[in-house]
């Protein structure tokens, strides 16, 4: 894809001026890292606070009397359990129970839900949702992605920092809850969610205020000082989510991977009534999965990378979905699909690293869990 065709968030120029190394990410021109580099960015988010432009994520409004029923029919989690001001993690599944995408579902009201989906899959998701939507659903669907920027502020200092810019009492909002309010005078949705394993917020606002908000966060966060905020690129976003064993679409999740295989049984509510893929998922739950996602860490030197084969007793039995050095844990970690019998912690496995079989061991996930 040529540079001119790439989509840009409202913060594109800001990323460039901060020395962001820009890459094509699912059709978006995004910073993979800034001047500090991925390790510094990762560590700063774990120990102080990191700032992320996630404006490329997609936002889809579902409004009307049938909103809850409709979203309940196309996603795996139970939307009827949400109360106003609450969000949950869920998946869109196809007829075979494969994951079309993972998403957050926000309940603003009985007739007003917001779906937040991945950047590279927004158009596919909206087409998928549209194809299952009719007048009979008694609700409207709108791809409103262009109307929102999204900035994530994450890390131990994140809530206190954001509190300086809003009158909304941030500590009264629980994890996976949200509120509408103002940040630096700008109308915003303040969501206590994230993709780093740290406490923090994701702030949605009109894109025309993206630069104002971003620069305000940098200013209040004392960007440039040793313990100040650091903007974090996609590379740090990836290593942070991997340490926390959060799934990434295209790696742990995909159209031919089911929630049960990806350890997402906890957001797959067969008892809630019919939804797309329910029958296939019920059958799989009954029969048992033939592969399951597991975390591992390397014992021998070497870094497992996405796509590397996994061996047990000299037999190829799985594949790495994400693998990387873990900057905070200072280990080389990864996630892989393996036969369920080999997913118990302590199981020794080998990773084929460019022809050399290096020893690794299955470990419990998440690899990293923050101290509360």
């Amino acid at each position, binding site marked *: 894809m040529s540079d001119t065709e790439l989509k840009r968030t409202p913060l594109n120029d800001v990323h460039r001026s901060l020395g962001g190394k820009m890459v094509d990410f699912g059709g978006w021109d995004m910073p*993979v890292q800034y001047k500090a580099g991925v*390790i510094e960015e990762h560590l700063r988010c774990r120990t102080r606070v990191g700032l992320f432009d996630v404006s490329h994520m997609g936002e889809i409004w579902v409004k009307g009397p049938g909103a809850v029923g409709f979203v309940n029919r196309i996603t795996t989690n139970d939307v009827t359990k949400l109360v106003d001001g609450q969000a949950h993690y869920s998946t869109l599944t196809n007829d075979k129970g494969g994951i079309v995408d993972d998403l957050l579902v926000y309940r603003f009201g009985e007739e007003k839900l917001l779906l937040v989906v991945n950047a590279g899959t927004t158009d596919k998701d909206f087409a998928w949702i549209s194809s299952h939507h009719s007048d009979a659903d008694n609700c409207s669907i709108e791809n409103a992605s262009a109307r929102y920027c999204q900035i994530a502020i994450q890390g131990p200092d994140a809530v206190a920092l954001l509190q300086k810019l809003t009158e909304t009492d941030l500590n009264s909002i629980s994890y996976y809850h949200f509120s509408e309010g103002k940040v630096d005078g700008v109308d915003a949705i303040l969501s206590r969610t994230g993709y780093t394993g740290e406490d923090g917020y994701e702030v949605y606002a009109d894109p025309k205020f993206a630069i104002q908000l971003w620069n305000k966060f940098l200013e209040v966060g004392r960007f440039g000082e040793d313990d100040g905020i650091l903007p974090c690129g996609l590379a740090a976003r990836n290593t942070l989510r991997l340490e926390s064993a959060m799934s990434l679409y295209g790696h742990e999740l995909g159209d031919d991977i089911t929630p049960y295989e990806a350890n997402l049984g906890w957001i797959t509510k067969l008892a809630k009534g019919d939804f797309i893929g329910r029958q296939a998922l019920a059958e799989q739950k009954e029969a048992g999965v033939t592969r399951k996602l597991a975390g591992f860490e390397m014992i021998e030197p*070497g870094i497992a990378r996405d796509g590397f084969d996994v061996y047990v007793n000299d037999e190829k039995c799985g594949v790495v979905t994400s693998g990387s050095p873990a900057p905070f844990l200072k280990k080389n970690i990864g996630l892989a699909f393996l036969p369920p019998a080999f997913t118990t912690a302590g199981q020794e496995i080998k990773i084929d690293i460019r022809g050399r079989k290096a020893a690794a061991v299955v470990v419990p996930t998440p690899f990293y869990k923050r101290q509360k």
Partner: protein
Amino acid sequence: MSNIPENLRYSKDHEWIAIDGDVATIGITDYAQHSLGDVVYVDLPRVGDKFDTHESFGSVESVKAVSEIFTPLGGEVTEVNDGLNDAPESVNGDPYTAGWMIKMKMANSGEADALLSAAEYEEYLKASE
């Protein structure tokens, strides 16, 4: 601007080579370490391993990517920088001294003449931008 010491020779694969008699010390250039980002692992050959010119003799891994490193000259490995096992970040911080990778006894010292000078390497970087 990349740091390109005058006294070294260079390859188009972004290695630097210090020639001392028939021994060549090899590492990657400042430009290469900068493109890679934070180096977290360096996989090097063993002493005694023999390589032809432009063979892959190891790899440098950053958080995001793996890059192979190629021999700019043929010969036998006489020494390996074990210090990089514990401090791979030397490749970023100090690519021309602490970040050296291997020493090779050259099979054919004449090969060194084909390497780029500092000025030629600088030209090459400019042209490939």
